[in-house]
């Protein structure tokens, strides 16, 4: 069988299409930046802040993609575990880096358990992992509220009254994380060209990147990539498919928990009942903006994605205001874009998958045409 012949136009189009989302965002940003009137120094600073704040969370998404389970909408589970860790250290008054580390330690078993549960359920819903993990996020959110809103302060002792709702139990809507606010960011911070760089945070992220690169090269990483490509082939080769999938979700959930702690130490306040719900959507949107797809994502996608997505996020309200005189419009615009980009990425992925299926037919038609031509 021969190669499918494509015209040059088709080839260029397919390259453009493969990168359509990042290209679209670059165009958005290129138009938005002058409209917003922000200085490059300001934008540079903002992007550095947001890379430090969000990258860890987004990198947590890479592992399940590697194992072929798509975008892990269940990363909110990890975020919830991280928040529980933070509530405890806020209650116990443990400050600074030790506080952060303790929060991470507390979050680990919770994340691991939730990840295991999520992995188990996803193994029962093969082929619709994404929508299932999305609903798991909602379901566990109910359980989280049960624990945090009703359990904490009544069953689980919380001694700091500043955390507890006036009625005597349940955590307040916002928890002040002043004790660990920016502790990691301010550690080793330096200024270059007037932009302050949170070196320690970036080092942590770099370490995580190295971990991911190293992990891909381990036996487990190799198994995950094998499972991600073809469950049955991997199974026939003796790889424990179900177990490998569960491990990938557990790992992703634990990393998401740490990521949430890094994220919240930068923000400085915890929105007890909202922070985690948004974070999954924004992380996934950012990763997709960076050019990742449902089955392929790299560290490069993470950083390109964070930069482009947040650039759009920063400029759109002011750009909207300057363009139409409505800041609110820009706000809505960025919400629309976040959801829109996920929709487009999901649709493109499906459409591409089906077009690959028709390839064999096109080849056959081509062969037949060649034969007919040869006969004449």
């Amino acid at each position, binding site marked *: *069988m021969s190669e499918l012949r494509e015209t040059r136009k088709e080839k260029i189009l397919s390259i453009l299409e493969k990168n359509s989302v990042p290209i679209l965002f670059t165009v958005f940003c290129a138009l938005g930046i002058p409209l917003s009137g922000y200085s490059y120094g300001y934008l540079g600073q903002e992007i550095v802040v947001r890379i430090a704040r969000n990258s860890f969370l987004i990198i947590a998404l890479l592992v399940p993609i590697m194992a072929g389970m798509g975008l892990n909408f269940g990363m909110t589970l990890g975020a919830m575990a991280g928040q529980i860790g933070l509530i405890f250290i806020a209650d116990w008054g443990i400050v600074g880096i030790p506080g952060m580390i303790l929060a991470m330690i507390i979050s680990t078993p919770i994340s691991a358990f939730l990840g295991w549960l999520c992995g188990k359920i996803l193994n029962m819903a093969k082929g619709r992992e994404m929508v299932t993990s999305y609903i798991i996020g909602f379901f566990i959110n109910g359980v989280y509220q049960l624990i945090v809103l009703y359990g904490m302060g009544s069953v689980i002792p919380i001694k700091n009254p500043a955390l507890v709702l006036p009625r005597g139990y349940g955590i307040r809507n916002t928890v002040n994380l002043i004790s660990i606010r920016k502790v990691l960011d301010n550690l080793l911070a330096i200024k270059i060209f007037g932009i302050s760089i949170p070196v320690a945070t970036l080092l942590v992220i770099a370490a995580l990147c190295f971990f991911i690169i*190293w992990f891909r*090269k*381990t*036996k*487990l990483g*190799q*198994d995950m*990539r*094998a499972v991600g*490509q*073809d469950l*049955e*082939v*991997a199974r*026939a*080769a*003796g*790889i424990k498919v179900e177990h490998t999938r569960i491990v990938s979700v557990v790992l992703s959930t634990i990393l998401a928990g740490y990521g949430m702690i890094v994220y919240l130490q930068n923000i400085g306040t915890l929105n007890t009942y909202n922070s985690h719900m948004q974070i999954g959507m924004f992380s996934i949107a950012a990763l997709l903006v960076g050019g990742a797809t449902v089955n392929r994502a790299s560290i490069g996608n993470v950083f390109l994605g964070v930069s482009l997505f947040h650039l759009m996020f920063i400029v759109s309200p002011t750009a909207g205001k300057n363009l139409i005189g409505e800041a609110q419009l820009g706000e809505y615009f960025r919400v629309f874009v976040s959801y829109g980009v996920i929709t487009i990425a999901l649709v493109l992925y499906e459409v591409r998958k089906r077009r690959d299926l*028709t390839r*064999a*037919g096109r080849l*056959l*038609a081509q*062969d*037949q045409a060649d*034969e*007919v031509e040869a006969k004449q």
Partner: protein
Amino acid sequence: MAHTGVPILELRDISKEYFGNKVLTDVSFSLHSGEILGLVGENGAGKSTLMNILFGMEVIQQTGGYAGEMLVAGQTVRYQSSFDAIADGIGMVHQEFSLLPDFSVAENILLNREPHTRSFVSEVFGDRLDSIDRKTLVSKAETAIGKLGVSIDSSTPVGTMPVGHKQFTEIARELSKDSIRILVLDEPTAVLTEQEAAILLKAVKKLSDEGIAIIFISHRLQEVVDVCDTVVVLRDGKVVHNEPAAGLTIEQIARWMVGRDVDQSRTHRAFDYAQAPPVLTIENLWVDMPGETVRDVSLAVHKGEILGIGGLAGQGKLGIPNGAMGLFPAGGKVVFEGEEIALNNPKNFLDAGMAFVSEDRRGVGLLLDESLDWNISFAAMQVRGKYLKRYLNGMLQWRDEKSIQETARHYIDALQIKCTSSKQKAKELSGGNQQKICCAKAFALEPRLLFVSEPTRGIDIGAKSLVLQALRDYNEKSGTTIVMISSELEELRAICDRIAIVTDGRIAGILPANHPSEDFGLLMVASPKGATEVTA
């Protein structure tokens, strides 16, 4: 070649039943190191079951195990899973590739057997966190490729390679196992070009020189004669011949494969199809049906005849009706009763007055979760507008439950379908009765031409003759032209007027059904490129 000493593999009186259906009876043969044994037989002769037993596949245990004894290097073995077989040095290359497209050749060859090195992390967290030793991986893979005597770049992703190289990768995977002693190759050349096949055969010879025993399963008898030391012919689950390959001819082997004790009592009806006008003509049809690709088929079907289409599995016979109906992407020209039928849309096919009973009963033929009356009436309701009450000048087309029930009951009686009522769900019926429902569905369409694909697949012998009789009756009573596709040659010879044999996606020849089996056998195994058009 004379072999001495203990055979590496010996089968003694292997028998196997599937639900009371005997598929293997007292199969015995032995295989020595360095020997190449050609295993040939028609579809359903029992080759795959035999290989499943050899390879310890779970399906064998799940269906009650097997009788007889299997010895590997003189030791009796009874494998519980394929991993036991692998550990014992048995390697199998299946017809379907089991490769990961994005992995490199080397990664695929050593899938789940990657060489790894311990690190302090894995000391703590277990060996799944060992780093993979890429260098050793590549060198091991290259050694395995080297054994084949071919050159493939071990770093290429498998997905981008030609089929031949994929096949070599599969074989190299088995060779990379240090303990490999017996290698089973199932139709290794089926997807290869002639040059690729030649290279592969050379590689097989080389492996046998190194002392690996090889079971070579192929329908290309020329290859079998060329490369094998011994030929074992299976027919109906029995070893009918076990002879040295030297001096055998293709014709001989083909006759052994298909030859049955001819049932003299069968009567062939005298049907002069030449007198009947062609009702359906197919020209230059290609069909992209996975595993059943059709290339450039031209065919004429005469009014009132029963035309059989036979051939070995995977050669494309099933693609013809599926493509003509529009279930799979197809191209070419199909003319029915003088009108060209646009392809790729089943509605055109059905509207023209044809119907199709699919070989895929559960996937295409039935609404498993719905009642029998729905299954029988649905197509006729949608295509012919039957079983509908019309109101408001036909604007409202209401399902007429009463006439649906009546029709269902009629066919349940006529075809003796065993069910509790017409409201039973289709999935609850046995295979034979499901098949009858599929036929009833097609009959309800009152087609002038009916395609029936593998009508007796997976149903017991009693039901088989009932289904075939129903088709014959239908043809004779209502004058419907029937095109029947089947892998069972004898079944085709029993009820068809003519039989076309499809090989490698093309019509290898069409013969009247009363020709001897050998003639059809030869057409089935004809080398695809050198096929001579035999027409009668």
